[in-house]
């Protein structure tokens, strides 16, 4: 396998310690768990998505672990503005704050709370199971553009995280780019559900949820590849990454870095384990790898 040289990394203006970033919503509500992930080797962390009001999330079950992935319908639980306190404990660390709102004004407002402390914002316009938020915005190019523009007013790097649950993900990617996004993150979870045949009802409290993990890796690779062909801003790959090989594959598809979420379930030390295999002093420059599969 190709290995990468260890060199200072910047992704879309954000300095990160390596190419492996903790994905939004995974161990992302407390400063303590976020810094634990950094200690365990994450190059940067994305926080839980923070919104305009505290939310307690959907009724359980919220998560089921499948053989080849994870199904979740958390429902965007978050402490809203109070999250500022947590952020104070992370000053100087590579922390990207994920935010959501129901319209551009809410995005602007929430971003404002963290504008001093965030290294960058990631806009969650892609959660497939929170009504009025997430994918309900992220399937509409105009809304995506407007929300991106609103957050860009805070003059911080803005990453826009896309949903694969659209007919054409490149249309949404281009809207983010037009709105001034510094990077695109692809992908959020794929709308999905399971039924308990024993109890004759959907397993998730919210009925519908999002699929992540290995099952969606080929969908994530495809999305990154399509976006790389259609857009010019950097792309961060996300979805089903669980090995150094997967990271290389994402980068070859066009990603400058990757986010990792569900793989934590099987290996809480995943960042260290991937880094050990991914980097080598005689490795190649990431520049030679990013997008090299485009023929």
């Amino acid at each position, binding site marked *: 396998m190709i290995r990468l040289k260890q060199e200072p990394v910047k992704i879309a203006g954000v300095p990160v310690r390596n190419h492996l970033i903790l994905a939004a*919503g995974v161990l992302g509500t407390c400063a303590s768990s976020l810094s634990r992930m950094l200690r365990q080797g994450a190059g940067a962390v994305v926080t839980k998505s923070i919104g305009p009001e505290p939310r*307690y999330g959907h009724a359980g079950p919220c998560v089921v672990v499948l053989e080849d992935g994870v199904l979740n319908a958390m429902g965007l*639980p978050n402490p809203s503005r109070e999250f500022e306190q947590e952020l104070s404990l992370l000053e100087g660390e590579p922390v990207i704050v994920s935010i959501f709102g129901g319209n551009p004004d809410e995005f602007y407002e929430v971003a404002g709370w963290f504008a001093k402390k965030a290294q960058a914002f990631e806009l969650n316009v892609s959660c497939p199971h929170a009504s009025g938020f997430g994918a309900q915005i992220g399937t509409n190019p105009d809304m995506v553009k407007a929300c991106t523009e609103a957050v860009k007013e805070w003059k911080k790097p803005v990453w826009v995280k896309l949903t694969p649950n659209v007919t054409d993900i490149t249309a949404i990617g281009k809207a983010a780019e037009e709105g001034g996004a510094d990077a695109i993150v692809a992908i959020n979870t794929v709308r999905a559900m399971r039924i308990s045949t024993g*109890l004759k009802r959907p397993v998730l409290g919210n009925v519908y949820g999002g699929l992540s993990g290995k099952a969606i890796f080929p969908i994530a690779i495809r999305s990154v590849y399509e976006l790389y062909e259609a857009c010019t801003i950097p792309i961060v790959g996300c979805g089903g990454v669980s090995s150094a090989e997967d990271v290389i594959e994402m980068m070859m598809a066009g990603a400058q870095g990757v986010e990792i979420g569900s793989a934590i379930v099987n290996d809480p030390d995943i960042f260290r384990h991937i880094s050990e295999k991914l980097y080598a002093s005689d490795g190649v420059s990431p520049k030679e790898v990013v997008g090299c599969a485009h023929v």
Partner: protein
Amino acid sequence: MPMSDGLPFPVTITRVVQESPNVTTIYFDHAFSSKHGQFVMVWAPGIDEIPMALSYPDAITVQRVGDATTALVTKKPGEGIGIRGPFGNGFVIRGKTLAIAGGVGAAPLLRIGLEYPDVTFLLGARTAEELIFYDTLSSACDVRVATDDGSTGYHGYVAGLLNEINMDEYETIVVCGPDPMMRSVLKVLEGRNALDKSQFSMHRYMKCGVGLCGSCCVDPDGVCVCKDGPVFAGQMVIKSELGKYHRNAAGLKEI
């Protein structure tokens, strides 16, 4: 019929036993093998999914406190619930063991009292009426009781019972109960140099049970109660947020 994937395993309730006015043991038609101290996520269909100890391999013991626990304690034999897990680590029992339980915190400790040869069980409750597992436990081990109102046993908190205990006799100390109770026990154990042989079962708001969502994380180390716990060494717990604050379902700190 094991389902593929980690979907909730459907079980049928076979028997419901009232342990106290507020606490009910619910037996079902499947025995789960688990380590003492591990927990399961219990799905009350249509309501919520909540963490519970397995008081027996085929039972949970539920204190009614809100929606989901009410739904569970009012279920009838024949009805179905779902079980994910068992999850988490578990207690490690060595030698003579002191179990300290407050309220329904007795559930994860119960089988330790029943199955190990040399256990002293300190059982605390608010009143005599709310005491659970007393009869079952006293036939198997040395049980000492404390009630807040003095209606039976020692009058006061269960931590008070520790005065009459010679800590040196015990190789293992296991504790489960409400946060303030565990904090007072921590203080006593620290004062009597017994912290290093103690294990505490913590509880925090849990949504996933598998170390993913972060809702059960504990300061300052950021460990997950569901995955790194629920059982932690006293040495770690004493430095934690326990008894000072915890986070609710939204991640907001509460006292």
